[in-house]
C-alpha cells in the first residue's frame, strides 16, 4: 500500500503538480506513447532483423579476413580488460557490481544459446572484463599503473591486429581502435602543448600557440584529408596505410583541443602552489610533474572525456579517406541490392550501438568526476 501511495505521490509531484504541468503531461505522454507504439509495432511486426544478423561480421569488423577473426577476439579481450581496470578505479567491485556481473553473464549465456557461433568468444570477453575489474578492485598496484597499462594495451592491440593488414580494419572495430588510440595519445601531446604555450621560451610559446590556434580554427575533416594527401607527397618512401594516416590526423587535431582543456586546468591551480613547491626546493620539472599537473588534470578531466566522446562520434568522417568505419559499414551493407529495403533496420541498429557506447563513456565520466570531486574536498 505504501508503494502505491509513494508512486501516487511521485506522480503528483513530478507530473501533475500545477495545472500547466498537468496540461503538459496530458499532451506529452500520449504523444510519447504513440511514437513508442508506432516504433514497437514496426520493430516487432514489420522489421526484418535478419539483415543485421547476417551482416553482423561486416558491421563489427568490416572486411577483416574471416580466418583471422580470432585476432579481433584477443584484441577485444584486452580492451574489455582495460575497461574493467578503468572501472575498478571509479567503482570498486562491490556487491551491486557482483549482481550486475551475474546478470550480464546470464544474459550472455542466453545470447550464446541463441547465436551458437559466437558464444565462447563473447563469454571470454565478458569474463576478461569482470576478471580484471575484480583484480583491479583488490590490487592497489594495478590501479596505480593504469596509465602505463593503458598504453601497453593500446600497443598490444595494434600489434595483435596488424597481421591482418590495417587496410582490412573496419566497422565498429575501426571506430574503437581509432577512439582508443587518439584518446590515449592526445593526452600526453596535450600536456606538452599546454606547457609549451605557457613556456618562458618565446619561440616555443609561439609555436605551440600557433599550432593550437590553427588546429582549432579548421574543420576535422580538412585535417584528416590533408594528412592523407600530404604524407605520400612528403615521404613517398614510407607508404603508411590509410588507417595510420587517419589515426595521425585525428590525434594531431584533437591534441590541440586536449591542450586547451589542460591549459584551463593549469590556470586553475593557484600561484601559491608553485611558490610553495619552489620554496621547498623542488626543481622546475618536479614542481610541474608532482604538484601542478595532478591538480590541473583533475580540472581538465570533464573536458578530456568530452573530447573522447567527440573522437568516437566523429570517427565516421574517416570515410573521406576511403576507410570503412561503423556508419560506412552500414551504408556498405545497404548498397547490396538484396538489402536495399532494409534501411531502417540497419540505421536503428547503428543508432542503438552508438547510443550504448556513448552512454558507457558518459557514465564512466560522471563516476570519474564524482571521485575526483571527493578528492578535492579532503
Amino acid at each position: 500500500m505504501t508503494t502505491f501511495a509513494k508512486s501516487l505521490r511521485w506522480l503528483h509531484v513530478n507530473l501533475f503538480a500545477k495545472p500547466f504541468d498537468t496540461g503538459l503531461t496530458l499532451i506529452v505522454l500520449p504523444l510519447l506513447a504513440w511514437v513508442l507504439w508506432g516504433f514497437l509495432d514496426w520493430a516487432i511486426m514489420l522489421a526484418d532483423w535478419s539483415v543485421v544478423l547476417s551482416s553482423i561480421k561486416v558491421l563489427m569488423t568490416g572486411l577483416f579476413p574471416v580466418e583471422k577473426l580470432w585476432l579481433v577476439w584477443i584484441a577485444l579481450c584486452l580492451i574489455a580488460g582495460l575497461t574493467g581496470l578503468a572501472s575498478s578505479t571509479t567503482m570498486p567491485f562491490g556487491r551491486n557490481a557482483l549482481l550486475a556481473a551475474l546478470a550480464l553473464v546470464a544474459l550472455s549465456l542466453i545470447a550464446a544459446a541463441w547465436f551458437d557461433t559466437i558464444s565462447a568468444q563473447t563469454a571470454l570477453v565478458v569474463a576478461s572484463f569482470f576478471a580484471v575489474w575484480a583484480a583491479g578492485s583488490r590490487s592497489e598496484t594495478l590501479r596505480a599503473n593504469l596509465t602505463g597499462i593503458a598504453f601497453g594495451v593500446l600497443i598490444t592491440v595494434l600489434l595483435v591486429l596488424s597481421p591482418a593488414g590495417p587496410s582490412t580494419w573496419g566497422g565498429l572495430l575501426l571506430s574503437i581502435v581509432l577512439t582508443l588510440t587518439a584518446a590515449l595519445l592526445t593526452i600526453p601531446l596535450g600536456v606538452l602543448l599546454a606547457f609549451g604555450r605557457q613556456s618562458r621560451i618565446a619561440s616555443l610559446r609561439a609555436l605551440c600557440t600557433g599550432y593550437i590556434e590553427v588546429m582549432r580554427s579548421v574543420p576535422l575533416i580538412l585535417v584528416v584529408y590533408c594528412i592523407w594527401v600530404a604524407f605520400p607527397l612528403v615521404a613517398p618512401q614510407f607508404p603508411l596505410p590509410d588507417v595510420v594516416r587517419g589515426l595521425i590526423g585525428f590525434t594531431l587535431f584533437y591534441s590541440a583541443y586536449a591542450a586547451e582543456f589542460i591549459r584551463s586546468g593549469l590556470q586553475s591551480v593557484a600561484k601559491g602552489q608553485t611558490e610553495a613547491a619552489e620554496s621547498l626546493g623542488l626543481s622546475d620539472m618536479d614542481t610541474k610533474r608532482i604538484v601542478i599537473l595532478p591538480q590541473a588534470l583533475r580540472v581538465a578531466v570533464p573536458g578530456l572525456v568530452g573530447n573522447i566522446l567527440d573522437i568516437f562520434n566523429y570517427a565516421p568522417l574517416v570515410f573521406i579517406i576511403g576507410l570503412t568505419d561503423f556508419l560506412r559499414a552500414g551504408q556498405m551493407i545497404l548498397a547490396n541490392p538484396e538489402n536495399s529495403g532494409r534501411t531502417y533496420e540497419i540505421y536503428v541498429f547503428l543508432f542503438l550501438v552508438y547510443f550504448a557506447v556513448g552512454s558507457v563513456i558518459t557514465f564512466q565520466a560522471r563516476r570519474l568526476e564524482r571521485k575526483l570531486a571527493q578528492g578535492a574536498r579532503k
Partner: protein
Amino acid sequence: MKKISLTLALSLMAAVPASAEVLEDVLARGTLNCGTDNTAPGFGYLNTKSGKMEGLDVDFCRAVAAAVLGDANKVNYVTVTDKSRFTAVQTGQVDVVFAHTTVKPGRESAITVDFLPIMFWDGTGAMVKTASGVKSINDLEGANLCTTQGSSTEAAIANILTAKGWKNQVLTYENLEKLYGALDSGRCDAMFTDKSALAAWRGNSAKPDDLTILPEIIEKSPFAGFVAANDSRWRNALRWITYGLIQAEESGITSANVEETKGSADPAIRKFLGVEGTFGADFGIPADFMAQAVAQVGNYGEMYDRNLGPTTTIAIDRKGTLNALWTEGGTMISPLWN
C-alpha cells in the same frame, strides 16, 4: 648558363613522374591495388553473405589482376570516394581506379588522370507504364513529363521539347519517391531521372513488368576506369585489356569455351588468346593475358549480365542501348587485334 640549368631542372621534374612504372610495381608486388567504391549497387558493393566485393567495377579489377598477374583474386580493394579517387591514383596509393567515374575533359586536362576506354554508359532516361504502349521518347507528344526539382534533367527535358516543337506539361516533384508515386497514380505519363535509379525503382516495384524503361539516353554519362597520367606502358596495357574484354564478347569467347577456343585455326583468335604472337610480351605482361581474364572473369557481356543483367535486381536493359555491342547497334567496340 642560367637557361641550361633551368631546362635541366625542368626536364628532371618532368622525368620524375615518367620514371614511375606502375606495371613494374604491380608485377613486383604480386597484387593489384584497385580503387573501387563500396556503396554503389551494381558497380562496387559487398556481398554480405560471401564477404566478397561484387559489381561491374570490381569485375574489371579482377579482370586486370587475372590478365597482369594470372590470378583474379590477387586484388587489394582500396575504397575510394568521389573526393579521394583522383588523389589516390596520383599519389600511387592505387594502381587503377574503377569507381563509376564519368569521363569529362577537365579530368584529363586539369586533374590529369588518363581514362581507359568507356566500360558503361549511364545517363538520364525515362520510364512509362507498359500499358501506355509508349516505346520511345518520340511517342511522348502531349504526355505529362515529370522529374525531380532542381535537377539538370529539367533543362534537358526543356531542350527536347524545344527541339521537337512540342508543348507538353512538365511537372516537378520534391524527391524520387513522390516522382514515382505520381507515375504510379497516373498523374504523370513518364518519369525522367538516372537510368540506374529508374531500374532500381522498377526492380523494387510490386510488378516490374508493368513498367517500361525507354531505351533512349537524354544526357549521357560514360563511365571508365582511370590511371595516373604519363605512364603509357601501364595505361596502354589496361586500355587493351578493357578492349579485349569487349572483343572477346564480339568473337564469342566466353569463360566456358576459352580453353577449346585456343585450339581454333583462326590466326586472329590464336594471337588474341596468346597461343601465338607477341601481344602480351610487347606489353610486358603474360602472353595469355586475355585468355586468363576471360577464363577467370568472363567477357564484357558476361560481366554485364552478372552485375546488371536481367537476373539481377537492378536489371538495366542492354539491348538496343549504348551499352550493346556495335554489331547490335550499341557503342561497345574494340579496335582490331592484329
